[in-house]
């Protein structure tokens, strides 16, 4: 009897050893992968991220030219949309306003930029009126189709005019918020589905780096 007991105990110990070995191997693999992603190096994801952003030249509601150089010196959160968009655009911009408030004193340390991808309907002045609805300053930009094509390409953004009944149309568009650092380099994104806690944490890292 005691012999069998001892045997079972030895087997159990041995099994736990296997579990521990597998777990530490997994942990090592995971940890081994992490720093490579963060440091960039030969990580394809980091290489891809570095392709977001780049030169652009658009106009603000006052008719002033705003370029990537104008925005340098402060991180910014960039969102593409159109003023006739009744749901995701106001919701996202209001969420940005709310997050800025939650950052407290750090709230001023980044710009919120809205680029309209509906140049046919959204004049700079109309974009200004639209943005006045949000209780925080938002830089509203648009440009000629060629100027917009440049920024859309720089950020790998998708937009497509879709006709609906009555001669009207809606615009399908990328609803991701791009977080760019003070040098205009890609930092991260905020997804529409992402919770506000996660969004706030990312913004905090953006402004405090």
């Amino acid at each position, binding site marked *: 009897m005691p012999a069998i007991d001892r045997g079972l105990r030895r087997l159990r110990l041995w099994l736990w050893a296997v579990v521990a070995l597998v777990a530490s191997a997994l942990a090592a693999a995971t940890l081994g992968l992490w720093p490579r992603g963060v440091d960039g190096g030969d990580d394809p994801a980091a290489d891809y991220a570095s392709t977001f952003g780049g030169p652009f030249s658009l106009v603000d509601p006052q008719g002033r030219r705003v370029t990537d150089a104008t925005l340098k010196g402060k991180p910014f959160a960039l969102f593409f949309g159109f*003023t*006739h*968009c*009744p*749901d*995701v655009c*106001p*919701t996202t911009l*209001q969420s940005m306003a*709310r997050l800025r408030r939650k950052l407290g004193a750090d709230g001023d340390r980044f710009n919120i930029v809205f680029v309209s991808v509906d140049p046919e309907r959204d004049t700079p002045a*109309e974009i200004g*009126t*639209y*943005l*006045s*609805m*949000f209780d925080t300053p938002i830089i509203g930009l648009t440009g000629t189709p060629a100027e917009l094509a440049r920024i859309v390409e720089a950020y790998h953004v*998708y937009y497509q005019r*879709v006709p*609906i*009944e*009555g001669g*009207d149309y*809606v615009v*399908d*568009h*990328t*609803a*991701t918020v791009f977080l760019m650092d003070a040098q205009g380099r890609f930092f991260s994104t905020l*997804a*529409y*589905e992402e*919770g*506000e806690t996660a969004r706030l944490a990312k913004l905090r890292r953006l402004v405090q780096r």
Partner: protein
Amino acid sequence: MKTRFILAAAAFVAAAPALAQVSVDGAWLRETAPGARTGAGYGLVVNAGSAEDRLLGGSTPVAARLEVHSMTMDGGIMRMRPVTGGLAIPAGGRVALKPGGYHLMLIGLKQPLRRGTMVPVTLDFARAGLLKLSLRVESIDHGRESPHAGH
């Protein structure tokens, strides 16, 4: 006289259940910027009837058209589309019109939707017919599912 009364009563009885079958709980419109030409409305459409109904669209004096639209998010790309053939509301079921999903789309706004005001909206159902509502205009934040909902 008596016949007419009976007919009227019969018509009333016939019409009443149809009217009572579909309702919209907690309906609201989102405030818009001055000069905005589109708006959105939401609410929980409840079908207490024993047959499927369809929300076809509707009308409101504040906009040229009122349609039911869907919103989908696919790989970070937002798409809005009119719901063709009406939005099915299953028998004894409910369908939520909410931010990030189905919504009432007010096209060609004649005036901005101002927070706190009430706006008449008539919804058109395939079976239940017209449902007259008065919708309150709420803040942009309204209806967020987060515990920090816009207060």
